[in-house]
């Protein structure tokens, strides 16, 4: 359930979803009326491999508190191999962010198929909660962008 208590910290979650699986999965969770928090804002990309690490850093710079990347399950990529590249890229990027002391739970990769509306909603609920626990992103924000 979504809580709209103003006192509670409302994290901003940016979700990159691949067009073929995860975006469809998100649509399905909508069709099935499966709730997840309004904190999650989805950006559609053709394939998870389109997501440049710069986009993720950009989101953090601009005030996102968590970034999640969703794509087809390994082996199911519409473009056959895109998500395999995504997996390596993101593993290394997240590892680097971790190395720099950025909280690990602010980033995640999840494979969500077009049939997994329930998984999509559950993932978003879970991820939002995890980020909420961490509190506002302070280690990778740009002070100039902080909302007054």
């Amino acid at each position: 359930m979504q809580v709209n208590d103003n006192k509670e910290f409302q994290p901003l979650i940016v979700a990159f979803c691949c067009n073929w699986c995860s975006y469809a999965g998100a649509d399905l969770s909508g069709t099935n009326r499966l709730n997840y928090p309004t904190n999650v804002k989805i950006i559609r990309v053709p394939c998870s491999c389109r997501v440049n690490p710069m986009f993720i850093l950009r989101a953090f710079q601009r005030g996102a508190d968590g970034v999640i990347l969703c794509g087809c399950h390994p082996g199911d990529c519409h473009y056959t191999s895109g998500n395999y590249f995504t997996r390596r890229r993101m593993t290394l990027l997240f590892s680097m962010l971790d190395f720099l002391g950025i909280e690990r739970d602010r980033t995640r990769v999840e494979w969500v198929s077009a049939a997994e509306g329930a998984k999509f909603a559950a993932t978003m609920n879970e991820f939002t909660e995890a980020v909420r626990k961490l509190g506002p992103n302070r280690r990778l924000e740009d002070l100039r962008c902080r909302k007054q």
Partner: protein
Amino acid sequence: MQRIGVFVCHCGTNIAATVDVKTVAEALGHEPGVVISQDYQYMCSESGQNLVKNAIKEHNLTGVVVCSCSPRMHENTFRKAAAAAGLNSYMVEIANIREQCSWIHKDIATATEKAIILGKAAVAKVHLNAPLTAGESPVAKRALVIGGGIAGIQTALDIAEAGFDVDIVEKNPTIGGKMAQIDKTFPTLDCAACILTPKMVEASQNEHITIHSFSEVTDVKGFVGNFTVTIKKKARFVDETKCTGCGLCTEKCPMKKVPNEFNMGLDNRSAIYIPFAQAVPKVATIDPNYCMMMKTGKCGVCSKVCSAGAIDYKQQDKFIEQKYGAIVVATGFNPINLDKYDEFAYNQCPDVVTSLELERLMNAAGPNGGTLLRPSDKTHPHKIVFVQCVGSRCDDSKGKPYCSKICCMYTAKHAMLIREKYPDTEVYVFYIDVRTPGKNFDEFYRRAVEQYNVHYIKGMVGKVTPRSDGKIDVQASDLLANEQLHIDADMVVLAAAIEPDKTARPLATMLTTQMDTNDFFTEAHPKLRPVESATAGIFLSGACQGPKDIPETVAQASAAAAKAIGLLVKNSITCNPCVAHSNELMCNGCSSCEKVCPYGAITYIDKEFRMPDRTTAVRRVANVNPAVCQGCGACTVACPSGAMDLNGFSNSQIMAEVDAICK
């Protein structure tokens, strides 16, 4: 700066019940560049679309944002509407405020707030949209089928049937492939040759089909609709056009000790040969490794006896280049090499044979004229042991991890045929599982067990030892009875795993198609696009894609043909305009993008540039073929300089969306 129109859909109450659409339209109306912002009951309805069209004309809009249901629903609807109003259809963006907002949220205030943000992101993106035009590329009206087995033949026939020219490239002197070697087919036990050879003849006589036998593909250039293929016609030292296939040369050839490939080396052929009686083309071929004339310069018998004057000892390999619109891969399979299987004594004992060898031993055109005799002493075997899964479902490096699929059924067939013809022969089949999913398959298997009393034993054969008395000691375990068995067999038949033909791997590289770790071609989608490769214009037919029996092969062959025809009927193909493109001024030529492209859409060209200091320099730069690129964007991230970008999902567009969402 764009002039943007925003259209917020109520979707009846689907959106309007949870999202305050008026507030959304009002808020988005204040975004920079937005000149009109409206809401409407059903934006996708005709009157809704007219609203959009009229606004485009009236306000001279350069961009449109529709806040509605998922773009997967109506993106196309609004793109068409925009195009009808004279706006480039790629200047339309959808903000998904139904599936990803109104339907999942309950609180109007927060849902409205989110809908506004999603709308702002779409507006931010549209600001950076550029009109895109789908390119077109012509289609060469000719197909190439690589492989002349039943898969290739069926595909070629179907394509020819539709009226398109099609070439078959077969590496062997004749088409026919594995099916030509098979005696009977399961589960009907009809004669393989009887159903195959008419198809071979049909192929050879079809005016649309050209058969390049004894030929190989050596180079493939180009892309969907426009492949240029180089085919090597290997020298067969016989002029195909002159040879009548009378066979006199093969009779007179003094060199008769050449292992006969067609009969799996179980008998011999001459140095000049026609693989089998129904070969297509029925043309002789000289094997230069054995021909006396070729080796010593002394002989020339065939040349003397050939009344057609077809023999040409000086013939050279010939290369032909041809343009094709579509390519079908039908390179088939082979049983794996069993040299490593010492435990089955395959290399030590001639009476341990593979199933394909057994086919030849039982075939009327085979080495024994159809009588099943032991290769060693030409006696009737009375006890035959079949070993299943030799190299299939195997964890170690000797074998294959997959199930070869056809072995269970052909072994049942063999067992049944032997029991039918030689009822005094005892037949044992050692299996891990018996897999019989298929029409009439399980019935067939049960007949072998119940009607023909074949001894099916669940268990593994541990060791096969040829004995000095000519018998073969088969040590095995019966897992159900939980006991060790020793069988004194006369023959052992190994159901060797099948693997893709060795020529497939280099071919895949030429075609820039994907293969799995077992060298089977990877289909574009395992469920929805099973006969297409991920590379546009390349289709897959038969066992090159995975183990298959004959009916499956033929079904896939026809499916591949249908897909190829679907491509060939088009005069040109419309390309998806949302493709990658490289900024040549920034490209380093490092090849990173090429490495991650699943479609081989990126090539490198050396291009001359005017440098800022007015000199010229030749630089290696990436070039994306828009007809081949599918727009995944893998290259855009692999490119460190950011030279590679994706139309419709550009770096700046996605970052603008991020910015808008995080604002």
